[in-house]
């Protein structure tokens, strides 16, 4: 579908581009555009971060983004344009990790589609974040299992504790 754009961007070639996201979703039918941009921040869980690396299983990530877009379209139940791009490679503080833009006729739908998309990208797409710390150490972030038995267990735990998946940006 030409109204859903998905990309994995190797940021050694080019950064993610929020302006391109806006351009893609712009349409005379749409009055509301909600976007979410995730950036690398300086601290996580109290540790000083110097940068992060993103590893992706690209073909499945792109398929997952597309499937998320179709789910967002069902949720909106009307015309929607959606842009989902995720960075790959080594990112410095302030670099964009993910850019999502959703445009619809009315604002509530745009917010819902944007939120659905970022939550799904974080919880379902085959993407892994490694944080690099000031002391030279690095660690892969705690994440969400894609394994059905564990997803179920994690969902039940999350219902008790709030989102405890450990990657709460």
């Amino acid at each position: 579908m030409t109204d859903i754009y998905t990309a994995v961007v190797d940021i050694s070639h080019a950064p993610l581009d929020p302006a391109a996201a806006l351009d893609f979703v712009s349409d005379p039918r749409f009055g509301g555009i909600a976007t979410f941009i995730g950036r690398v921040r300086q601290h996580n869980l109290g540790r000083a971060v110097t940068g992060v690396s993103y590893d992706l299983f690209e073909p499945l990530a792109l398929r997952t983004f597309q499937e998320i877009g179709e789910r967002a379209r069902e949720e909106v139940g009307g015309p929607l344009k959606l842009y989902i791009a995720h960075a790959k490679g080594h990112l410095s503080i302030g670099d964009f990790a993910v850019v999502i833009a959703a445009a619809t006729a009315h604002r509530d739908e745009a917010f819902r589609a944007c939120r659905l998309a970022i939550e799904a990208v974080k919880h379902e797409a085959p993407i892994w974040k490694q944080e690099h710390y000031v002391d030279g150490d690095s660690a892969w972030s705690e994440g969400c299992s894609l394994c059905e038995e564990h997803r179920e267990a994690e969902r039940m735990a999350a219902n008790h504790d709030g989102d405890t998946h450990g990657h709460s940006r």
Partner: protein
Amino acid sequence: MKVRISLFGALRDADSRGFIELEIPEQSTIATLREALQHHVRDHAPAISPNLVQRSAFASEDEILHNHRAVPENGQLAILPPVSGG
């Protein structure tokens, strides 16, 4: 049959080549493959937590493959540790 399992995230440390190759019986399920991989990792990459393999999903380029599914005929898979994108 020979399968080649691509590694991602924290599981990349299990083999510096970025993949693991295993011999498994024809028509194995993902559950069987998971057991075989756990044995392999225990022997060849003891630093990797068995729990991490347990919490990981197998996938083709098209979809997640749950435990009851057959291993794809082309023997190409990926193992996906818990994800942390965004």
